[in-house]
């Protein structure tokens, strides 16, 4: 009988996220593990290279909290709401100093794909006419050995640790996801260590009943954490909606360093864990709990 990988968020972060690490907290709008980000801030991690396509609010918070030395990304905005001001202050004023390495969405996807496939780079028909390769000398080219066509290349990204949020997994880390998939699978396979955080822990038989839905196999997972509402203000399809109001309200908080510090003091440093964060804000569950839209079962018999 294999040993359970179930641990607390505190223990997972303590064991697997170290100062100076290259970290990915994945999820494209969907399934972004804010709970893990908050625990990283609480444990005072420093000098991290943080990577995501969109930093989203979670990396704005990590930058504002002083955890990050470098950001690897492709789009740093807060859609429909404004800017990521901690990110902008870091880049425009150097407070705090932040190295950036910038791609496009396709470039970031390609980096993770190379890492996941065990390749040193990934080719694309991309970047002709743009200034992105001027800004980032890691965007290079290669000549196709068959056609002579010049292709753009980006280097593989191999994170030290990737944190995945998902709807459910079993104790071995066999993880099932539905809704937007982002680059979760690629980031996990590219990574040295993987922490999976789930809304619900299920028995292995639930996983085996629908194997097409398994995105990440337990064999590459190091830790499994159960953290209901762990993605708030991001969302989990079938569990809770995105907190669009929070994203809009982030604009004035992010814009003012004093307000940002006050937010982190109250809702990150001032709570022990996600359960306490949720208990402090009971209206969240009432407002955002998901409706029901079940998919019909499929027959795997033969």
């Amino acid at each position, binding site marked *: 009988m294999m040993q359970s990988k179930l641990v607390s968020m505190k223990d997972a972060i303590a064991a697997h996220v170290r100062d100076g690490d290259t970290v990915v907290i994945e999820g494209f709008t969907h399934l972004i593990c804010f709970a893990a980000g908050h625990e990283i801030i609480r444990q005072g991690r420093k000098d991290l290279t943080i990577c995501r396509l969109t930093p989203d609010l979670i990396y704005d918070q990590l930058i504002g909290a002083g955890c990050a030395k470098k950001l690897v990304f492709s789009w740093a905005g807060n859609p429909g709401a404004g800017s990521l001001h901690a990110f902008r202050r870091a880049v425009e004023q150097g407070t705090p100093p932040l190295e950036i390495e910038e791609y496009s969405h396709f470039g970031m996807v390609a980096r993770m794909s190379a890492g996941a496939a065990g390749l040193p780079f990934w080719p694309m028909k991309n970047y002709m*006419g743009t200034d992105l390769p001027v800004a980032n000398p890691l965007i290079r080219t290669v000549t196709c050995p068959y056609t002579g066509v010049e292709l753009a290349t980006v280097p593989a990204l191999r994170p030290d640790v990737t944190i995945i949020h998902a709807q459910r997994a079993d104790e071995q880390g066999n993880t099932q996801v539905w809704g937007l*998939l982002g680059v979760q699978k690629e980031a996990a396979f590219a990574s040295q260590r993987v922490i999976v955080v789930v809304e619900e822990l299920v028995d292995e038989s639930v996983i085996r009943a629908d194997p097409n839905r398994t995105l990440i196999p337990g064999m590459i997972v190091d830790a499994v954490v159960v953290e209901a509402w762990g993605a708030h203000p991001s969302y989990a399809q079938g569990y809770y909606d995105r907190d669009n109001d929070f994203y809009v309200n982030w604009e004035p908080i992010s814009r003012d360093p004093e307000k940002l510090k006050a937010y982190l003091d109250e809702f990150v440093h001032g709570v022990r864990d996600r359960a306490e964060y949720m208990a402090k804000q009971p209206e969240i569950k009432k407002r955002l709990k998901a409706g029901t839209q079940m998919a019909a079962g499929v027959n795997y018999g033969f």
Partner: protein
Amino acid sequence: MTAYSPSEMMSAVAARELANGEVVFVGIGLPNLACNLARALQAPDLVLIYESGAVGAVPERLPVSIGDPSLVTGSLMVCSMADVFQLFLQNGKIEVGFLGGAQVDRWGNINTTVIGKYQKPKVRLPGSGGAAEIAIHAQRVLIISRLNPRAFPQQVDFITSPGQRCKGKSRRELGMPGAGPVKVITDKGILESDPETGEMLLTAIYPDVAVEDVKSSVGWPLRAREHLDLIAPPGAEELRLLREVLDPKKLYLG
């Protein structure tokens, strides 16, 4: 005649550009309104694809981000972002892409990266997202942007998404597969790329707008085609759909 706002005009004009059954890459804001308006009118079989991975999305509420959960529920397909960018976009399946940005220049190049120098920018903008590759690969690109001289400089500070001519080189010379930005839908009229030179020319004007007004809203000596089309304002049904069905809270129609 019913009064209408610039956003309503731009959404209606953009919607008219879409033919039934076309495959469109959608962003939030006015492009999203335009696509859903087109679906309700002449293009019920328009296929909406979001770079987040939702294919054939039919959102029941106005999405405020391209990763909204309403894009997933009831869609035809949800795929990974690797699949969206490689199998759909790079493989040439996207017929129309919508783009917008802080700066659009004389050649349709778009800047969403920095105002000023890259190493020490005056303003750090969000960056490319999927815009660079959309500009390269979509079979054609429609830009939606309000005119003002600072937003329409002769040359952008940074080329994020390539237009018709990048530092003197044409799209063909640079090996880009898609036609790039063919129209810029503004709040005063329409610019189209000249098929010979790639330069953006004024080809159509909206009701009650003077050509001089358009020319003074752009940061280069804007050339106009000899015959300018006069664009019809949004009709009653277009306005009803925009105001009552698609964006009743005026999140984007302001």
